[in-house]
């Protein structure tokens, strides 16, 4: 087991290096650079730009250097924990990300909890009451939730909340708390604003999870050990909780790998629509504006989280499920 962990950890290094190269190349693929994008944006709003000034800025930002040099400069900085400099914000990347990261964590974790709390009971209920009217009803709701694009739901809520209730959705806290240090009042304000994005973002996830849980559980409920347990007189609730439910959880644990990066980057489009101060819109903007160090460093963080997440979920699976044993097959 120890050898396995070390092996997995060592493999991460070339993986991350390869990812960094791919990330850098993809960001550089579109024609032009940050400054030409910036210039185009200003011109689209009717402003003029001095080309001489651009040449100077290009030199200052090091955009005139060959790309391999830019790449090495960036990777070298990353190795030292320096995430680089954001052109668009005129600030070091770490400062740009700052507060947004915490708000993103809050939104994402609340959404995941919301998803689980709603999806588990419904999933279990519709699996144990398969093909009943209530199963059909919940299934229908689930499919509607799955099929509605998140951003559309967000727009619809934005519109009706304004015309019916006169409130404005958007943002994560009252105006007066923006930029203020964290306090109990600020936290309360965040909670009050949180439910709308959580519902909007969580809907499709909830629907998806209901369907998966129901399918997994149905597989298990047919198996003989369940029949045996029932025949032996175990209470239905205990039967369900003790065996089939646990078995059907495997896919969720395997999901942790993708869950971690989702926590910091998820739901970018919805966040844009609801103008949430999270990291998703920032990443989107950085990619559109070719703000390469901001986008690159952020994508690297996500890759790191994905790699670590997959590793952790593999370990958790091995620990939780006695049927998965390392080396059992290959030792033959």
């Amino acid at each position, binding site marked *: 087991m120890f050898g396995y962990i070390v092996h997995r950890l060592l493999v991460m290094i070339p993986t991350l290096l390869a990812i960094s190269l791919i990330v850098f190349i993809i960001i550089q693929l579109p024609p032009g650079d940050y400054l030409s994008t910036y210039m185009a944006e200003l011109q689209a709003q009717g402003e003029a730009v001095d*080309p001489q000034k651009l040449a100077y800025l290009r030199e*200052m930002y090091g955009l005139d250097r060959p790309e391999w040099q830019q790449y090495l400069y960036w990777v070298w900085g990353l190795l030292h924990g320096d995430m680089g400099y954001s052109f668009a914000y*005129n600030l070091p990347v770490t400062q740009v990300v700052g507060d947004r990261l915490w708000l993103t964590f809050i939104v994402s974790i609340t959404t995941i909890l919301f998803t689980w709390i709603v999806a588990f009971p419904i999933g279990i209920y519709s699996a144990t009451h398969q093909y009943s009217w209530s199963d059909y009803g919940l299934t229908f709701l689930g499919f509607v939730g799955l099929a509605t694009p998140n951003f559309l739901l967000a727009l619809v809520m934005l519109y009706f909340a304004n015309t019916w209730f006169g409130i*404005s959705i958007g943002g994560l806290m009252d105006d007066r708390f923006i930029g203020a240090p964290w306090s109990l009042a600020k936290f309360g304000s965040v909670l009050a604003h949180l439910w709308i994005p959580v519902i909007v973002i969580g809907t499709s996830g909830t629907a998806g999870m209901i369907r998966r849980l129901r399918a997994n559980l149905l597989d298990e409920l047919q198996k003989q050990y369940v029949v045996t347990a029932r025949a032996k007189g175990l209470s239905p609730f205990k039967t369900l909780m003790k065996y089939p439910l646990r078995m059907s959880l495997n896919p969720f644990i395997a999901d942790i790998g993708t869950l971690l990066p989702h926590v910091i980057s998820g739901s970018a489009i919805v966040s844009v629509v609801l103008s949430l101060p999270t990291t998703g819109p920032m990443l989107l903007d950085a990619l559109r504006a070719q703000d390469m160090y901001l986008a690159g460093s952020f994508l690297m963080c996500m890759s790191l989280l994905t790699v670590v997440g997959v590793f952790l979920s593999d370990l958790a699976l091995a620990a939780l499920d006695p049927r998965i044993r390392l080396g059992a097959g290959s030792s033959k």
Partner: protein
Amino acid sequence: MRRLLAILALLLVGAQAHALTYIETPSLAADVAAGKLPPIAERVPTDPAIEEGRPGQPGGEMRVLIGSPRDTRLMAIIGYARLMAYTPSYDLVPDMLESVDQKEQRIFTLHLRPGHRWSDGQPFTAEDFRYWWEDVANNQLLSPTGPPVALLRQGEKPKVEILDPLTIRYSWSEAMPTFLQMLASPTPITIYRPAHYLKQFHVKYADKAKLAALIADSHTRNWAQLHNRMDNPIRNDNPDLPTLDPWMLTTRPPSERFLFVRNPYYYRVDREGRQLPYIDRVNAAVADSKIIPVKVGAGEADLQSRYLRFDNYTFLKAGEARNNYRVRLWKTGYGSQLALYPNLNVADPVWRTLLRDVRFRRALSLSIDRHELNNVIYYGLALEGQNTMLPDSPLYDEKNREAWAQYDPAQAKRLLDEIGLTKRNSEGIRLLPDGRPLQIVVETAGAVAEEGDVLELIRDTWREVGIKLFAKPLQIELMHNRIFSGETMMAIDRGLQNGLANAEMSPAALAPVQQEDWQWPRWGQYYETHGMSGETPDMPMGIELMNLEHDWMNATDFEARRSIWQRMLAIHADRVLTIGLCAEVPQPVVVSDQLRNVPEQGIYNFDPGAFFGVYKPDRFWFVPEAPADQPS
């Protein structure tokens, strides 16, 4: 003797100013009472600029929406506190300067207002000008390319003299008629800097150890990078940088909301002695540019124009009554909202010959039904015609706007036949001399629906005279690169940036001196790179325009400048160098019912105009309770 008169005049003006009894701003009264701020009489210059319009009431917070944190720069544009400034009728007058003397348009003596202070209370003096010229613009590390090119007259640097603490002189050996205009630009060449603040970042003045610590703290590579980051009055993203603007930034980026607070040392007062700006705070919230129209429609802005487009008009109008605002339609200043640019430098030799044939360009223009475009896309509210000056410009000539701009397919067909494009293929499309069908690919930048709609309508009328049009949307950088390299046949883009020019403004946009003019990108490149790349203009028309621009710079009197402008405009109209479509497409401006002094009818333009800048937003004010039916 002149000097004496000047002093006398100064004393008189000073006496007049002192006749004003200043009224303390209510929101600052507490700070003054507590001794944190000096009283108003000591904060404004001894000779403040006086706003002659009807006085308003101080107070209130103005909400605006911005598309990204970078838009903090807009406040520096809209605030429009400049050494020289344009009035709403585009006369150039001293603004922060008390006065300016010019001799032969080459020696400019700038006089500052005595007692004018930066937003931190430090005096604004000639030292600030000296610091910029000697220690910033001419510092190898801070400005590797030297002083801004716009300040050079054929490579010659100006002579900058500090005559006394309130007087600065810029002089060149030849006429420099564009100098004062540059000071009035929305993004001006700021020829002064808050020296007392910036010296702490300058290697020449700063304490070595302190500077090293500052560099390390800010993760910059060297002092020059640190200095440049701290010193960006146009970008306006450093809350510590003292300013002369009406509102100063108080939020340190990054943030989702930026608060601008009144500058207690602002140099303008109203005629009753209240210090401007009237509005205490400007609250700029960041929202995605695509949902800004929705938020504005929900009443989340008190004054908004940015990111609103004409096609949002009906939506915004629907929310008016519910959310207590009015949508006003301002005229825009483009020579043409959209114009077609036939590329005279296209690489394909057959197309190059054809596009350079004036008859062909005229035929293209004659076979566009501008009236239909106007009615279908702009509800008939736009002005049809060529890409030239607008009726509000003193250089406007109706002949130029109407030249070859009527819809006349019969004449277009005659012209095309005359060129020899008589053979047609089975579809009825005319054939080029080498047998290829006459298919024009018009390249557009990106996803703006307006351009696609316009081309769709032009396609139908061109089809009638035997020309096929294809629209090709491209990513904007890709389009620029294709134009620069001569691959693009024709592009569609905004028309002349300034359709409101007068004869005192530079006519450079009409001459082949810029790579960004899509009709002659390679000629412009030739000029900009001093012949290193591009092509030398090889058509008599191009050479003449180039010479006219040169003559304008050397012309000494107004009449000569005006006739040069008129000649250049006439060449453009007659030779159809760009094909204009519709102009004066309205810009929606959303104004809260409580906000006063925003003009009902205005012109929305960047340079000159600075968007709201010429209307001096420091005099906009809020009425506490809104009588909704009463116009301001």
